[in-house]
């Protein structure tokens, strides 16, 4: 497997969404390629930082609007 081929499939690799054969080929390549290993580290870090990003708080006026909706729901 070449670096470019690996580069195109790194997210599927991180997400465990590739076949065991391709996964093994990727793993072997990464073990022997310092740059791809480092790049994979940075991509994994990027995904993990996204997952740590707190959501914006629900604004009070939206909370009030949704509360009004609960009290007066439209007919289904």
């Amino acid at each position, binding site marked *: 497997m070449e670096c*470019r081929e690996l*580069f*195109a*499939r*790194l*997210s*599927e690799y991180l*997400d465990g*969404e590739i076949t065991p054969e391709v996964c093994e080929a990727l793993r072997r390549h990464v073990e022997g390629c310092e*740059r791809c290993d*480092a*790049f994979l*580290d*940075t*991509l994994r*870090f*990027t*995904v*993990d*930082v*996204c*997952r*740590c*990003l707190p*959501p*914006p*708080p*629900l*604004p009070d*006026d*939206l*909370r009030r*609007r*949704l*509360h009004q*909706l*609960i*009290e007066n*729901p*439209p*007919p*289904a």
Partner: protein
Amino acid sequence: MRAEHSRDALDDLLGALRRGEPEALSALVDRQGPRLYNFATRMCRSAEDAKDVTQETFLAALRSVKDFRGESTVSTWLFRIAANACRKMRRHGKFEPAHHLSLDELMPGEGPIARPAEGPETAVLRADVRTRLEDAIATLPPPYRAVLVLRDLEGLTTAETAGALGITLVTVKVRLHRARLALRRALAPTLGGHGAGVP
């Protein structure tokens, strides 16, 4: 990743909504409101539009709850309604035009690749990381941004994301990878820790 409520719990909720139980609507708003607002805020890039989308999503859901057959989870159904509301705003000219992210342009250059110097929980507390990440998400083309927000911020699966956005599994994977690569490139200068300047 946000905690995903179990399918059974949400389906119980759906049954109660169909029976018109107000506690069910209150629970749905509590559970899904912040998630829908997060998605809408990032897609609309306007707090006022995001509030309208969030409210409209619940209104549309209540109007159509009797027709919802449960082929997807309740959260996927709600995100689908929200995504359509966001698209409607985009058609009305409130969104930026979409453009394509090229894989070739996102490949790393020839220079050294710095490994992360700290964990993601620590890094996300840093203002420079947060600013770069938020800016990078906000400037992703909308089709890529929608996939990234649902997959990596809201924790939907690939199949749920495909269902919510009405696109194929392959398209979800392609857009997600390119979106992540764009964010990774934006974060690269911060990867070596405080004051790092590695490309």
